[in-house]
């Protein structure tokens, strides 16, 4: 039996493309979790909201892409900051599961509102790049997935660098490790909280444009957030690097499972991996283990 290397290469490339999208969305989860210790399940719905906002501006109002993209990102910043200030901050100190449920509630509201405004039918986003396929060697790749991969890689590199070298990221780290102590050192903790939600929501909205460009948009596309959550948990909820590694890995596994076993095996493979990981290393590949204190 001969192995079709070109086919394998194509699957690998599409897996990497999907993984990059998961990684960039994962950054949003990590940013919020690291600072505020909240797992925000509404990230998936925020992503969907961003995609629909872009759809509304470009396809319905006919605005140019170069205007729509910055507007979506600014909208994401305002949306995230608004959510943090009005709903999440008053929940500070409540049990993590309660806050988790609040974000589920927020997600549900977003889905309903989007359905009311744009209807339940799926749509296609207008493409930022040309539809012409690209060949890497003999393998065919859609240009959309190359663009989304490039953007995702740039975003992740940017955040890794910022978190490593920007002085302000120390505020973030201090707040993450002990909010009370950080506050008494003069760090404006509420502002750090606000900032993390604002930036994370902006990332999610921008990621929504990429995801929508590749796969089309529908009110159910928020489910993507659940897969990303799995990835983030496997990588370690507070590790961007872990998210990146696991996202690419899961992207590849999904692509191979989807091609060789059938589409329905995509989700199951992610969740089986997750269960195994939780069993073996509950805090994820690169995450910090939490210590229980009485």
């Amino acid at each position, binding site marked *: 039996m001969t192995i079709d290397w070109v086919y394998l290469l194509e699957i690998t490339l599409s897996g990497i493309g999907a993984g990059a999208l998961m990684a960039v969305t994962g950054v949003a989860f990590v940013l919020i979790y690291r600072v505020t210790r909240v*797992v925000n399940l509404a990230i998936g719905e925020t992503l969907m909201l961003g995609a629909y906002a872009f759809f509304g501006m470009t396809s319905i109002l006919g605005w140019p892409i170069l205007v729509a993209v910055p507007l979506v990102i600014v909208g994401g910043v305002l949306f995230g900051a608004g959510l943090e200030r009005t*709903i999440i901050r*008053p*929940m500070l100190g*409540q*049990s*993590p*599961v*309660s806050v*988790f*449920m*609040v974000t*589920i*509630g*927020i*997600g*549900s*509201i*977003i*889905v*309903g*509102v989007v*359905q*009311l405004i744009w209807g*339940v039918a799926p749509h296609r986003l207008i493409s930022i790049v040309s539809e012409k396929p690209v060949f890497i060697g003999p393998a065919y790749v859609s240009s959309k997935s190359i663009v989304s991969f490039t953007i995702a890689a740039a975003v992740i590199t940017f955040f890794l660098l910022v978190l490593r070298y920007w002085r302000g990221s120390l505020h973030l780290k201090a707040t993450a490790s002990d909010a009370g102590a950080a506050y008494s050192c003069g760090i404006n903790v509420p502002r750090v909280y606000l900032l993390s939600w604002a930036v994370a929501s902006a990332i999610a909205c921008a990621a929504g444009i990429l995801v929508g460009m590749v796969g089309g948009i529908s009110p159910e596309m928020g489910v993507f957030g*659940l897969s990303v*959550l*799995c990835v983030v*948990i496997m990588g370690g909820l507070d590790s961007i690097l872990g998210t990146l590694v696991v996202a690419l890995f899961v992207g590849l596994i999904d692509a191979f499972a989807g091609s060789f076993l059938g589409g*329905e095996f995509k*989700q*199951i493979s992610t*969740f*089986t991996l*997750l*269960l195994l990981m*939780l*069993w073996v290393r*509950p805090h994820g590949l690169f995450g910090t283990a939490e210590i*229980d204190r*009485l």
Partner: protein
Amino acid sequence: MTPATETDISIVAAAHVGRGLSYRRLLWGVSAVLFVIAPFLFSEYWLYWVCLIAINVVSATGLNILWGYTGLASLGHAAFMAVGAYSVALLDKHLGWSFLITVPLGGLFAAAVGLLVAIPSLRVRGLYLAIATIAASVILQFIFSNWDAVTNGMKGLVVQPAHFMGVQLDQPRLLYWIIVPTAIVLIKMASNLFRTRVGRAFIAIRDRDISAELIGIPLFKYKLLSFGLSSFYAGVAGALWAYFFRVVTPESFPIETSIFFLAVLIVGGIGTIGGGIIGAAFMTLVPELLRISLTALGPWMANSATVIPSVRIIVFGVLIVGFLRLEPQGLIELIGRIKRPFLKSRVS
């Protein structure tokens, strides 16, 4: 202190206890009478909702044991209901057993699957546990939709109506006599549970698991027990569900149903038996109330019928966010607060 005052006090106390008792007795008497005459009093439409509420109450009470009393949040509750429903469907199809056997067996199968899921999942806590249970429920869902030989895939299984002494129980009016008594017994069992050693151990684990372990409660054993009990309730609810709707597909119990039951507890009042009951009744009726009110708006709103699903999702989210943010103790606390001034004036 003279003997006379002591007697006075005890008389007053006895009077209070006596009055409390008779008030409770009256309540019990009225409920019992209502329970017996309800099927003859109400229309088929109302009995449909009564049965559905009773099924949801059973399931919510199960989740309450796990989340409200043991502090372990699970997002896999719907999957355990599905196990109960599928067990009934399969036992009915292949063996044709009576509901008297299949319903408890459905609960037991669900409990077994629950334990199987719990053993690896209980290594983690809090949010991680919630996510591990999502993973488990996705895997169960996958089995239901792809194990064609047994579960008939996406087409699902049809359940024959339950039989009792030659009577076909295919109407809510008749199913009432199975569903509601089961619900009452299971609620009573749950509320009694927390007066026993096991129930108190659950509460100790919820309040602080490390402390509970230090005072000698074997954590893993009791957490496992809580998971099993909760899945048993879910399984029984699923079994009743199967007889009520008479068709079971993989889409009958999506992950949204698990979220629905968490929302039931949040809205009703987590960690109280009454909260689970009120929450289940309220959350079951909300979609219907929305449908009725939006349909009534029809003459003024052109698209009032098409927006119903979207409005339902929004209201669902608003209820979760609103209750967690403004009244985390839920409806039961609100009702208590409204009732309190009246009760006080009666006592003084």
